[in-house]
């Protein structure tokens, strides 16, 4: 087996493992679907109260609040995945006592990180597609299919950036052990201040200024322009260099942070501690 094939094989071993574990928790699996439906219903009713005039127009088209929020919820899933999955998986392995046996296998740190999250990398897009499809079907929303590909490209650059942030977070979890609540708060703050659920125009001007340099806000904006406004590549390509640079920066910082955290745990002898 080549090295790459061997890495891929290991990642799929994680996927198989996580599928088996998740399937053994069927109630939680269906609970997730239920929470998705609850979110849609909640945002639908909020939408009834929101004045459509405060929602920005995309491509000259008037947008409903539920359509606006649906994009936020969909991309928010990716944000949560990239930011929280690796760190929560590391924490879970620590609690289960399986982190040290994992480290004793000839699996590189990079493959471990990808493997720990890869089940969700497959599951979240499926979940997102089902969610957007259901919203479109039952709430009579129209998404511009021509925007699907440009949106996918946005996600491809958005994910490494968020993944880098998540790697930084996992270094924090390894070091401080606890961090679930803090991570939830960070995800919420990033989501809200990036315009996931509410237009940025409603926030103080300094939030809007920060958002312009925030790759997450940029991704939300570009996705709405393509999926809701029907814009093409012209809405995406100007942002790609900035998103790519941001992704490289956070991935590098995350990688260094994890290595430092591992060294520290090794020195202290508390890698498996929880």
């Amino acid at each position, binding site marked *: 087996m080549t090295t790459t094939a061997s890495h891929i094989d290991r990642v799929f071993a994680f996927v198989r493992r996580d599928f088996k574990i998740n399937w053994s928790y069927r109630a939680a699996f269906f609970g997730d679907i239920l929470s998705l439906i609850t979110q849609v219903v909640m945002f639908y009713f909020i939408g009834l109260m929101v004045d459509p005039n405060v929602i920005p127009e995309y491509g000259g088209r008037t947008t409903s609040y539920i359509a606006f929020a649906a994009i936020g919820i969909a991309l928010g899933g990716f944000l949560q995945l990239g930011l929280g999955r690796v760190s929560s998986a590391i924490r879970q392995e620590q609690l289960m006592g399986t982190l040290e046996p994992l*480290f004793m296998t000839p699996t590189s740190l990079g493959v471990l990180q990808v493997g720990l999250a890869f089940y969700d990398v497959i599951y979240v897009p499926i979940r997102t597609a089902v969610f957007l499809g259901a919203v479109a079907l039952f709430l009579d929303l129209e998404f511009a299919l021509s925007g699907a590909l440009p949106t996918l490209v946005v996600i491809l650059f958005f994910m490494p950036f968020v993944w880098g942030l998540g790697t930084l977070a996992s270094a924090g979890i390894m070091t401080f052990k606890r961090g679930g609540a803090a991570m939830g708060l960070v995800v919420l703050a990033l989501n809200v201040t990036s315009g996931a659920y509410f237009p940025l125009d409603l926030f103080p001007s300094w939030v809007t200024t920060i958002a312009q340099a925030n790759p997450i806000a940029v991704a939300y904006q570009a996705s709405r322009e393509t999926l809701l406004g029907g814009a093409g590549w012209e809405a995406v390509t100007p942002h790609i260099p900035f998103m790519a640079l941001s992704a490289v920066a956070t991935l590098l910082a995350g990688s260094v942070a994890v290595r430092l955290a591992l060294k520290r745990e090794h020195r202290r002898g508390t890698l498996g501690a929880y």
Partner: protein
Amino acid sequence: MTPIVTLDGVSRRYGDKLALTDISMTVEEGTIHCLLGPNGAGKTTMLRVMAGLVGPSEGSLSVLGGDPFQHAIRSRIGWVPSDDRSFYMRVSGRENLLFFARLYGRGKRESTRLVDSLLEEVGLTDDAYKPVRGYSHGMTKRLAVARGLLGESPLLLVDEATHDLDIEGSRTIRALFRDLAERGSTIVWSTQRLEELPGLVDTVTVLDRGAVRFDGSLDDLVASVDRPVYRVAVRHEEGAADSAEFAAAALGESASVVGGEGHVLSIRLAATSELGAALRKLMDAGFEVLTCHEESGAIERAVEMRLGS
């Protein structure tokens, strides 16, 4: 012989507490080296240092010719932790092993073959498809042993592998590791069970409160202790008022009476005496010998002596 593990002045500190103090030792290739000591002696910490999971606070070590913290070295070490909580409890033992086998870079077919064969070797074939949460301590331990062998590693670090096993299970696991050592693997075996050492281990490090009290071959450890003490229950035809004094006189220089209560005496043989001759002297002096047994085994006495208990 080639040293596989070398520790040179290794100390490990957790806050103010010294878990290991200035440990120097060597484990040779193809041997089973035992880490022996009571709870809290530092056996697990020492294994974790050797596994590269914990770094030494002072000193240096070489494992398989390098630093075990380096991934390339650590991944060549087979690890059998003492902790029961090192598996995915919701899935079967077989599924757990298949997962780890894939992480060891084995293909699907090879993983299946190896896992099934290991499950049979550790006696878990019948329970292979049960979720690990339904396993007993002993079964989990056997599963941990099977996982430790997945990498076919040249060095195996084994922490209390027989701790929760019944006699038969324990014997099977010991035979498995003895066989591996005979095929060239090096094994560091941590235990508190003295009875399993003869026939299993080649060399021993006795640890106590993080310090080495003995390091050498099992034969040297046993040879270093005093002559054995026997507990002998006696009855005298004339009902001697003080059995101990009367027996001491009868034994002469062949043995000394080192203790006793009522008609049960503790006697230590002289260097040149045999038990039969000493008992004969007692019988010649009118004692009837009712029972006689060794107060403690040679290894136990050697370890007790090293631990100062």
